[in-house]
């Protein structure tokens, strides 16, 4: 039972390129979240989704786009990557907006 899977696990890209981080759940959690984790800042919410085709901004949404056409997938796209978007990105699923969250293993993204 994989739960939440993320791909790729590691990614190096150049400034200005578009990059998509994938998130897939094998459960049926209605809520899915994208966070970034940076030293000294902890986990900050980028976007979340309450159900298929329903998404909303979190604390730090600028420069990111999400979609959720299927309940099990929640990709995160950086439209034009910047160095400030170098971070570790975590996808999570939950049965509610403030309930226990189940995290994926993370994607370490480096923008050069």
């Amino acid at each position: 039972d994989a739960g939440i899977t993320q791909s790729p696990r590691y990614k190096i890209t150049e400034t200005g390129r578009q990059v998509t981080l994938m998130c897939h759940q094998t459960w049926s959690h209605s809520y899915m979240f994208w966070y970034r984790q940076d030293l000294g800042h902890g986990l900050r919410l980028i976007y979340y989704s309450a159900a298929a085709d329903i998404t909303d901004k979190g604390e730090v949404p600028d420069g990111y786009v999400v979609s959720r056409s299927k309940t099990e997938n929640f990709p995160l796209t950086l439209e034009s990557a910047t160095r400030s978007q170098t971070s570790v990105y975590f996808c999570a699923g939950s049965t509610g907006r403030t309930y226990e969250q189940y995290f994926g293993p993370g994607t370490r993204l480096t923008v050069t």
Partner: protein
Amino acid sequence: TQLLEQSPQFLSIQEGENLTVYCNSSSVFSSLQWYRQEPGEGPVLLVTVVTGGEVKKLKRLTFQFGDARKDSSLHITAAQPGDTGLYLCAGAKSDMRFGAGTRLTVKP
């Protein structure tokens, strides 16, 4: 400015010692969660506390929610190297807000 302040930021102790880490805020939360994160992995939930003053025990870990539901503490008794990791607290309001974490190292 973090909504949730965790202290200390780093803690290095010897196996067998006791320790307490703190999670403080000026905001009231409907619940508070503690997670542990190991290197290269996502956070994993340890406990959720809901009621002001609530105390929950998980083996050698004791979690307490402040009476006013603004703060929480995690006490570990007789720490072991397997307790090493990043401990995150998360408070629930309209959404979840995470603290920056306490990075604990337990040396054998």
